[in-house]
C-alpha cells in the first residue's frame, strides 16, 4: 500500500480511464548526488484536480519541471495528454499551462504585455489574442491594472497574472506549482476559489503542488504524498484519512521521558494502537479518542510518566503524512534531515 497505489496501473487501457498526466518511475539526481526524485510515479485522470503534497525539498517542483518539459529525468517517462514529454516537448507546451513557483512575469512590461506575449508564443493572433487577453485580465480582476508595469503589482495580483498567462492558450492541463505560497490569507482564499472554479467550469485537469495540508484537502480531488523523491501514498483525501481509523491522540511528554516504558504502558490500554514517540511528542490512534484519553493518562501515570499536554483530533492529512513518512509534516518541512525535537509548535 505504498507506491503501488500511485502506479498508473495499465496506463491507458479501458475507456473512461483517460489520463491527462502520467509519470512513471521518474528518477532525477542533481549534481553533488542530490537525489531529487527516486522512482516517482503517479497518474492524473482527465478533468480532475490532483495534489502533490509534501514538505519543501520532497521533489514536488522537480516533478513539475520534468512533466512540463523544463527539466529532463535521468530515467522514467512522463506523458501529458498522452504525449511523451521528452519525445514531443513542443506539442506538450501547446497543450498545457504552467504557473511556476517563481513568478515568471516580466516586471518592466505591463500586465497586458505579459499576457499577450505568452499568447503570441502560443500561436494566438490579432483579435482572437486581444479578446482572450481582455477576458483573462477581466476574470482575474486585473482589467484596471492591465496597463501598469507588473513591478507595481502586489504579490496577489502578480500571482493572478501568472495564472492568467498560464491559461492564455486554453490548456487541457494546468500545472500550478505552489500557487498560494507567500500569499496573504485573503489572496489565498481568492486563489482557492478561482482554482475551484477553473476545475468545475472548464473541465480542466489541474496538477497542483503544495506544502499546505489544508490546501490539498480543500482543492484536490485526489492527492499523493511525496516524501524524499517518492510517492508514499495516493488517494482521495477522504480515503487517506479513512485509512487512519479513529481519532488521533497527541500527548506532550516531559523532555527526559524514556521511550520504552511509555510504549509498554500504552500497549496495555485497550482500543489504542499505532503509538509512536518522537522526542517528547507521542501520538497514537484510538477508536474513540474521548473515552480512550482518560485510560491513556491513567496508564501513563501508573508508569510514572509526566504528561504536559494532551489533545484528541479527528484524522488530518498531517496524520496521514506522519503515518506514511514516519515524520511529522511540520518537522519535515522545517528541517528535512533532523528528527523531531520539541513539539511546542503544535
Amino acid at each position, binding site marked *: 500500500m505504498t507506491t503501488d497505489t500511485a502506479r498508473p496501473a495499465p496506463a491507458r487501457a479501458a475507456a473512461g480511464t483517460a489520463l491527462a498526466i502520467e509519470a512513471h518511475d521518474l528518477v532525477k539526481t542533481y*549534481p553533488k548526488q542530490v537525489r531529487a526524485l527516486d522512482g516517482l510515479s503517479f497518474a492524473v485522470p*482527465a478533468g480532475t484536480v490532483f495534489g502533490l503534497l509534501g514538505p519543501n525539498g520532497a521533489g514536488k517542483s522537480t516533478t513539475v519541471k520534468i512533466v512540463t518539459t*523544463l527539466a529532463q529525468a535521468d530515467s522514467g517517462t512522463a506523458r501529458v495528454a498522452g504525449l511523451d514529454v521528452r519525445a514531443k516537448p513542443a506539442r506538450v507546451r501547446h*497543450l498545457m499551462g504552467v504557473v511556476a513557483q517563481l513568478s515568471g512575469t516580466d516586471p518592466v512590461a505591463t500586465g497586458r*504585455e505579459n499576457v499577450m506575449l505568452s499568447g503570441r508564443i502560443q500561436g494566438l493572433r490579432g483579435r482572437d489574442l486581444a479578446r482572450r487577453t481582455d477576458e483573462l485580465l477581466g476574470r482575474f480582476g486585473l482589467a484596471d491594472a492591465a496597463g501598469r508595469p507588473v513591478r507595481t503589482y502586489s504579490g496577489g495580483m502578480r500571482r493572478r497574472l501568472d495564472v492568467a498567462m498560464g491559461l492564455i492558450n486554453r490548456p487541457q492541463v494546468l500545472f500550478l506549482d505552489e500557487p498560494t505560497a507567500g500569499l496573504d490569507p485573503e489572496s489565498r482564499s481568492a486563489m482557492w476559489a478561482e482554482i475551484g472554479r477553473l476545475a468545475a467550469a472548464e*473541465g480542466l485537469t489541474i496538477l497542483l503542488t503544495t506544502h499546505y495540508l489544508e490546501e490539498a484537502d480543500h482543492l484536490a480531488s485526489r492527492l499523493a504524498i511525496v516524501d524524499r523523491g517518492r510517492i508514499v501514498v495516493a488517494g482521495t483525501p477522504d480515503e487517506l484519512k479513512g485509512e487512519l481509523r479513529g481519532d488521533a491522540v497527541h500527548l506532550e511528554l516531559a523532555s527526559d521521558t524514556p521511550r520504552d516504558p511509555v510504549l509498554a504502558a500504552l500497549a496495555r490500554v485497550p482500543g489504542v494502537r499505532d503509538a509512536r514517540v518522537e522526542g517528547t511528542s507521542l501520538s497514537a490512534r484510538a477508536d474513540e479518542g474521548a473515552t480512550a484519553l482518560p485510560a491513556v493518562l491513567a496508564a501513563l501515570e501508573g508508569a510514572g510518566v509526566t504528561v504536559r499536554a494532551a489533545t484528541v483530533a479527528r484524522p488530518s492529512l498531517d496524520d496521514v503524512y506522519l503515518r506514511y513518512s514516519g515524520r511529522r509534516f511540520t518537522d519535515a518541512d522545517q528541517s528535512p534531515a533532523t528528527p523531531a525535537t520539541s513539539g511546542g509548535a503544535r
Partner: protein
Amino acid sequence: MSQLTTRPQESAPGAGPNAASRHTQRRGPASGAADLRASGTTMRSAREGGNVLSIAAHTTWMTGRQLRAVARQPAYLVIMLIQPVIWLFLFGSLFREVVELPGFGTASYLDYLVPGVVIMSALSSSMWSGMTVLEEIDRGIMDRFLVLPLHRSAIINASAVMQALIIAVQSIIIVLLGWAAGAHYPGGLPGLVVLIVTAVLVAIVFSAFSNTVGMLARQRETIIGINSFLLLPLTFLSTAFMAEALMPHWMRVVANCNPVNWALEAGRSAMSANPDWARVAVQGGGLAALAIAVTALSVLMFRAYQKSV
C-alpha cells in the same frame, strides 16, 4: 542561429492528430469544444515547425520585449548617451596635443578619437548583457519562456539583435556628435558603415561572452569583476586613444590579438581617405568569425543551463 532543442520530428504534422484526437475522445461530454481546441492546436504546431519565418517572428517579439524594457528605463538611456559624450570631450581635451607627437600620423585628434569612442562604448555597453540574462533566470522569466512553445534560438537571437540595434544607434549618435564638434570623415558613408558594423560585431562578441559568463557563474559579482578587469586593458591595449606607432613593441603585439583593436583598425582604415579594403576585410572577417564562435559558446552554455534546471 541554430535551433536549440526543438526536435525536428515533433513538428511533423502526421504525428500530431492521432494523439490529440485520442485524447479528445476520452474527454466525454466536453468533446465538441475539446475537438476544436485540439485541431487548433495541431494547426498551430504544424505552423510552428521550425521554419525560418517563425524563428524570425519569435525573435522579433522577444527583441521587442527587451527594447520596450530599455525604453522604459530612461536613466539607462541617458547614461548610455552621456557616457560617450563625456569620453569624447574628456579624452578630446586631455589628449588634444598628442597628435603633435612625431609619428602619430593624424592632424586632428578628434578625427582619431571618434572611432575610439564608438568602439569603446560598444564594448562597455554590451559587456553588461549577462546581467539581464542572470536577472531573467533568477526571476523565473527564463523558465517561463522555456515551458512555452518558443523557439529556443529566439532567446539567444533576441539578445544579439537588441545589442546590435542599441549599439548601432549609439554609434550613429557618437558619429553625429563628433561631426558637430568638427570631426572629419574622409572615408564618407562607406567608412562610417564599416565602423558601425564593426562596433556591432564587438557588441555581439562581448554580449555573448557576458551571457556565457552569466549562465556559467550565475552570480552578478562574477560579471562585475570580469568586466572591471577587462574594460580598461581591452580599451588601452588598443589604438582607441593612442596611435600604434607610439606604443611600446610588446603592447603592439598584444594589441594585434585584441579583438577591440581589430574593430578599431578596420573602422579607421575604412574611414580614411584611402582605405586598405583587404585589411578591413581580414580584420572585419576575424571579428565576425569571433562573433560566431562566442555566440556558439553562449548557445552551448544555454543548453547546459537547460540541462541544469
